């Protein structure tokens, strides 16, 4: 086997498997704790990543010599595909431990616990992932969106990984989650995807791998698994350049009539009657239609924009948008 590893044939196989496994690991987000590394370690240098994967692969071959020898040394067809699959399985298996890849471990543990429980019915859902429900006769639902998952509050006091990973607690949380999703669907019995349950847990309990031992400064303790409750940067800050650009875009989106009515109503706070008088409409119902159109367009324009849509409104950003919009309308009018 050692001789084979030095041959040109082995170099080709190892290079191909390394490249292919690297691609797979990136696309499936496999835990780099397998390589005893933190992701930032590889940010700058892809070469280090390749070298680490390659040396783990060689180690894997040597450790599993009896099984792999026949396939590789005898040059069986598709041997490199076999090696790739076996090595990926080895990687996943190695990281399904609480402190290696907490999220993957939690997923597997929850799946085992739910399957064994008499209170839940498990099934294979979309994309062959595991689903669970309270009863066998349930309705199928699509995957939950980020908004749906955030809507469900966390019922437990303790937010520690070790605590929620206990069988009893996991089952209680699964029942609670199922119940909340069922409420969203008008109290119908639903079947939920286990991945959605894990995503929800991940919002409240840290399921990120801790920094490996040798990267911690004093090298003695692992960092504790605690959730990161610091608000995301884009929740506090907004991009004023972008907000100003959107105000310019929306001013151009309105017709001349809509701009005139909108400015008098929202810039000068005039009543419909006064607007009608100023713009020469016969009655106060005259400016109502263009104003309704402008407001409808505004709602639609803002509905998916960060900091300006109703569900994540940033007051400062909205004030800037409003001021710039009125200014742009005035400028366009004066041109």
């Amino acid at each position, binding site marked *: 086997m050692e001789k084979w590893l030095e041959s040109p044939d082995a170099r080709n196989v190892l290079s191909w498997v390394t490249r292919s496994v690297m691609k797979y690991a990136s696309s499936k987000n496999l835990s780099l704790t397998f390589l005893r590394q933190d992701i930032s370690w590889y940010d700058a240098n892809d070469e280090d990543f390749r070298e680490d994967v390659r040396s783990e692969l060689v180690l894997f071959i040597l450790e599993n010599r009896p099984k792999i020898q026949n396939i590789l040394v005898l040059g069986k067809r598709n041997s490199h595909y076999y090696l790739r699959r076996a090595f990926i399985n080895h990687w996943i298996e190695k990281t399904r431990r609480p402190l290696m890849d907490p999220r993957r471990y939690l997923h597997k543990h929850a799946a085992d616990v739910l399957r064994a429980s008499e209170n839940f019915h498990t099934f294979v859902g979309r994309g062959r992932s595991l689903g669970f429900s309270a009863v066998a006769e349930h309705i199928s639902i699509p995957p939950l969106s980020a908004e749906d998952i955030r809507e469900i509050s966390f019922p437990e006091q303790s937010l520690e990984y070790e605590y929620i990973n206990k069988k009893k607690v996991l089952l209680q949380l699964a029942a609670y989650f199922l119940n909340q999703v069922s409420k969203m669907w008008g109290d119908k019995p639903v079947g939920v995807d286990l991945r959605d349950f894990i995503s929800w847990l991940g919002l409240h309990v840290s399921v990120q791998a801790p920094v490996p031992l040798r990267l911690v400064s004093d090298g003695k303790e692992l960092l504790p698994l605690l959730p990161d409750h610091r608000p995301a940067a884009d929740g506090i800050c907004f991009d004023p350049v972008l907000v100003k650009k959107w105000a310019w875009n929306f001013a151009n989106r309105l017709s001349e009539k809509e701009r005139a009515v909108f400015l008098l109503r929202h810039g000068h706070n005039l009543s419909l009657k006064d607007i009608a008088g100023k713009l020469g409409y016969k009655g106060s119902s005259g400016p109502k239609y263009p104003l309704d159109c402008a407001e409808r367009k505004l709602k639609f324009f803002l509905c*998916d924009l960060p900091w300006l849509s109703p569900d994540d409104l940033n007051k400062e950003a909205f004030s800037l948008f409003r001021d710039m919009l009125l200014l742009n309308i005035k400028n366009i009018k004066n041109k």
Partner: protein
Amino acid sequence: MYSRKLALSQAKKYRTCPPPHIADNPAHKEYLRQHLEICPYCSTRVMESNRSWGHLAKQIQDFSPSPLSHEKQNGRQTGQIRHIRDDLGRWREGYFYNPPLILVLEEIMEDSDAFLVAQMYHDIYLAGPGDLILSGEQTETDELFVECWNIYVAEATSLESPTGQVTPEITGAVRQLGQNPRAYPDWAIQPKPLADYDARIYFRELETEIGLIFRKR
């Protein structure tokens, strides 16, 4: 986790921003200028990158599912999944309306040149009550959903070759849901009811507008 708001942004771009072959065409220069003035997503930089992605888009198109066999095309047309012809995409008030995918529900007897169709969309995160989500096996293409509330008459000549086909059971379910948005068959995936400020409310506004543009006049 994927958010509905992001899905809505993608839908707005997908439905109302010009694709690279239109943005690159000098004949559309003035329309494009108007679009850039009002569109919150497109900017000169984005358009540049669209151009560089044009080649890739072409390659993807080459790999996209081929039209159904001649035999299937000439068979019963009810249940076929088709695109409205690409060249019917058009500018309106600064937006470029891209033709949607539709499901043929019925050949109209009094008018041999028209079909009753239901509009479809591909991102199931935007499916709401009354929409029918179909798997790749059910559509013979990809996972899609049928907007059973967005049914209209389209000209037969405005349709591309079929890219998928559904069973009569599915077209029947679409008609049922068109009448009653709660009448889901047992096998169907049921979308979440609409909530306040739900992105799907705005998505439906957009889809209604698309339907109004591409229906037979």
